[in-house]
């Protein structure tokens, strides 16, 4: 209704674009890019959930300014996403290396052409 859900809406739009890219494009590298977009949108979702208005980064500050205890954002989603990013790049690399192999054995990275080739053979 109001601005309160804006981050979630952006997440949904990004997720839809990523999903559409994966499903509609027949080029395998483009599919991997779509998958990355999808991933990034999920990261945004988690990090948005961890945010507390008026909070600060979850690193302890001890200074003389303690009128009130500082509010920290939730560190848990940060941890999950931090590792997810690195694991994501590792799996993307694996996927891309498979694409390279497919190109070598079929001569194309277009999904439809590969299917036609299979039917023709």
């Amino acid at each position, binding site marked *: 209704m109001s601005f309160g859900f*804006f981050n979630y809406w952006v997440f949904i739009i990004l997720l839809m674009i990523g999903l559409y890219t994966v499903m509609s494009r027949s080029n395998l590298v483009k599919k991997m890019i779509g998958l990355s977009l999808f991933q990034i949108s999920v990261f945004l979702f988690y990090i948005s959930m961890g945010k507390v208005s008026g909070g600060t980064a979850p690193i302890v500050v001890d200074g003389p300014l303690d009128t009130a205890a500082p509010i920290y954002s939730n560190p848990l989603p940060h941890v999950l996403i931090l590792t997810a990013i690195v694991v994501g790049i590792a799996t993307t690399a694996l996927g891309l290396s498979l694409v390279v192999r497919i190109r070598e054995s079929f001569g194309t990275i277009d999904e439809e052409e590969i299917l036609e080739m299979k039917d023709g053979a």
Partner: protein
Amino acid sequence: MLLLIAGTMSVLFVRNLFVATMLLGIVSFTMALIFISLDAVDVAFTEAAVGAGISTVLYIGTLALVGSQEKDQLKFAPGPMVICLAVGAVLYYATYEMPRFGEANNPVHTHVAPRYINDSPTEIGVPNMVTSVLASYRGYDTFGETTVIFAAGIGVLLILRQRRRRKNEDDETDVPLDKGKTGQSGSLSGLGSQHDLIPHVIAKLLIPFIFVFALYVQFHGDYGPGGGFQAGVIFAAGIILYALVFSLDYARSVVSEKAILFLISAGVLLYGGVGVVSMMLGGNFLDYNVLASDPVAGQHLGILLVELGVGITVTAAMLAIFYAFVGRADLIAAKAEQEEN
């Protein structure tokens, strides 16, 4: 945010895969900036280094091997579009049930997070809560993720480094790459030309600083944003820069592939070893309290060692992936030359 949407839309419509990759890098970087504004400094750091840095290098490496033009006709696919819109509509409907953005009493913030926030400074003695949760409270998870990276690195090596089988290679199974797309003779390792003076000088100046920065990120991760994952990626980026500007052969002479294979497993072993040692000293697996006389000091030591293990594995895995891609290009180039002669 709107920049982000525009960026992803253009990724969808652009025909040239090279441009799409660059746009993906831009989207990642914008996302990193948004993460900073959402207080997730560690995540922003990782996203900038991994998403905008290493993944762009990987995509370009792939494009060099497979060619960068997508098939021409841009067709509208009604089926996927309907599914996408349906998923979007359901999610949009679900957001009305979501707690509002940024309020402190959302369910996410009332479960285990307060314990992490309130107790970790005294229990772990490490100011950066992300590090303490990552390496200590959720040490099992991180161990699993390190193993995933290890497995992916090994997997890429297995897929791309496989020696060609000599038996019947008919025309279809081997398509030599188009020349020109991959540099002079299709070889990527000859990239660093002797004549590119400016990149050489700049890289020589930059690389030591990159390494020092990586070490800082590695060992200062307890106090500021940073840690093993980021440091590993930055370290790998330094070596990849060296390989790109000079040549792969030089980089190989600095860090050989055998050394990488050794390091990639050494990191995981170090992580697991810390767990086993803590078990031998009478604690649970990955319970760092027993590592030193004082629990807080023990936690500190444990986190330091574990992060080091993560850093080593990530560096080695990223380098293994990079070497595998570039080495593949060389293999194909050599093969094409053989066929010509």
